[in-house]
């Protein structure tokens, strides 16, 4: 091997070794337990299929991921559209505002929601002061709180890819559409929207996959009856129930990989979010 060809290997080598020792090995060892503990078997997974707790948690996780993805798409697309139409200065300021929560820790943002939604939180106190309610509403530790907080936290992941694609659309295209008789809505629906689909799909996938594995926010603002998959895994690890935790982890990983795989295979979605280079 020439020096030039071996250089890249040498450069990434240390990181590869680190990852293998402290990430790949523990993860694989953990995953292996799902089929080897207590003895080589698939019984753990068979058990999972009939496990009411697991099915409830998996359902909650999927439902939350869907609601959060739909919420961020619905709220994020218009913001991305506005961003793409602003003058440079206004766009920069708006982008900073969008990114601000990005630079704040998820923990801090989740606590902020606790302050807002608590029994004696800002919302309840305000409603009481206005004499709209007598007793505080139960807002914290509900699915509503989880959905709200996660939508807020994950919004930038939806806005950024959409805005980036929208900004690459040649401004003469909607203009040409108008010149050919398309109404503003017609130009958007027939030209801008289809051309922005790659961004919307990328954002959707990103938010959905992140939602599936979300832990801190549901743990802090969610209710005890609405556990998400990652919470259940943590709980089982605490109970030292390793085979069960491993099975759950494999399920989460598989769901994520199936989604990523689908984006590589489905026509139209390909190219929208392609792993690797073009």
């Amino acid at each position, binding site marked *: 091997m020439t020096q030039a060809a071996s250089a890249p290997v040498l450069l990434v080598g240390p990181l590869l070794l680190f990852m293998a020792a402290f990430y790949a090995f523990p993860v694989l060892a953990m995953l292996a337990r799902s089929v080897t503990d207590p003895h080589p078997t698939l019984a753990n997974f068979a058990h999972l299929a009939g496990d009411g707790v697991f099915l409830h948690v998996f359902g909650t996780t999927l439902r939350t991921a869907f609601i959060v993805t739909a919420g961020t798409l619905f709220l994020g697309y218009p913001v991305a559209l506005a961003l793409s139409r602003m003058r440079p200065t206004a766009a920069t300021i708006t982008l900073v505002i969008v990114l601000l929560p990005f630079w704040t820790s998820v923990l801090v943002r989740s606590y902020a929601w606790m302050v807002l939604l608590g029994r004696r939180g800002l919302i309840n106190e305000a409603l009481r002061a206005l004499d709209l309610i007598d007793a505080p509403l139960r807002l914290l530790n509900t699915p509503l709180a989880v959905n709200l907080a996660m939508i807020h936290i994950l919004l930038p992941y939806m806005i950024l890819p959409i805005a980036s694609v929208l900004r690459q659309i040649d401004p003469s295209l909607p*203009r040409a559409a108008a010149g050919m008789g398309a109404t503003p809505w017609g130009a958007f629906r027939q030209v801008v929207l289809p051309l922005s689909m790659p961004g919307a799909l990328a954002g959707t996938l990103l938010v959905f996959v992140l939602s599936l594995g979300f832990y801190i926010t549901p743990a802090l603002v969610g209710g005890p009856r609405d556990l998400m998959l990652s919470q259940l895994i943590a709980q089982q690890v605490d109970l030292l129930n390793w085979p069960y935790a491993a099975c759950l982890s494999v399920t989460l990983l598989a769901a994520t990989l199936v989604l990523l795989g689908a984006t590589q295979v489905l026509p139209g979605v390909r190219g929208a979010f392609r792993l690797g280079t073009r």
Partner: protein
Amino acid sequence: MDGGLSPIAATRLGRGASVSLVDLEKRFEGVGAVRGISLEIASGEFLTLLGPSGSGKTTTLMMIAGFETPSGGDIAIDRASVVGVPPHRRNIGMVFQNYALFPHLTVAENIAFPLKQRGVDRGTRAVRVKEALALVRLPGYEARYPRQLSGGQQQRVALARAIVFQPRLLLMDEPLGALDKQLRESLQLEMRRLHADLGITFVYVTHDQEEALTMSDRIAVVNEGRIAQLGAPEALYDRPCDRFVASFLGESNFLTGTVRGMETGVVVAECAGAVLRGVAPQALAAGAAVTLSTRPERMRFADALPAAPGNRLRATVTEAVFAGERCRYLLRAEDGTMLVVKEPSSATTRRRAVGEVAELAWPVADTVVV
């Protein structure tokens, strides 16, 4: 095509829209881009707005299309003001500089786009798309995507899309700017043919004087937000009204001097140590400063002509370049004025050597006051 008119063309013959611009103005943040343009464009005319970049020609076109709102003045299409009418209700065809083809649609879908907006049914759309493609000489390209076409082909698709809905006015913003010279020349001829076939009004924006001269019925030379001169290509070329037009539209030699007197429409002036005559649009007072302009290809070496009436001037050859179809000489007159002379080449013409003193001769009719 067999020379007969296509159905799109036949229905449109002689039915172009008239456009009138009245004191049109556009300011961007206080800075005037268009500063009072008035222009009557006749039905079926091929009018070119010619000017350097930043002259306001594109802004004027964008205001006619409705993409920019005038800061002052009026735009009327077929005598009805369109100021305040959104672009999608103006029914104007437009070809953009970068073609603006929709990348996610096929050629057929691109061309059908304006028809779809007008509620034309699917069957009719297919027929009209086919017809438009034939008109721009791209038959059979329906299923391709824009990225699969060359620049020239994309340009034709953009053109087909702009005319398929039978607009009475077609606006074009430097549509040939991105193409190479040969393709540009062949498309120029095609635009002319298309204009003749369709009979609709063309308003064409370019900074390329050759393009303007080749295609237009009339040219409006735009400079600094105003029309410097308006006229037929020959008139503009032969009788430029000022120095800007004379140098922007083709090449010119300028000779400055003082007026001696007038002779029925002709000024007599002392320039570069000689007495020269030039066509003057108005009388000039004796003693006033004057600039005479002559095209390089209208000047000749006096000794090569059988009889050389008109203006004569002695000058020294400082540079001689053989450029195939012609020889290009650079000469210095006695007062230091530099002159360019383009002489058609032939095997029998004597080449002038650098340093040679020669007498130039050219007709008074080819000399104008600018």
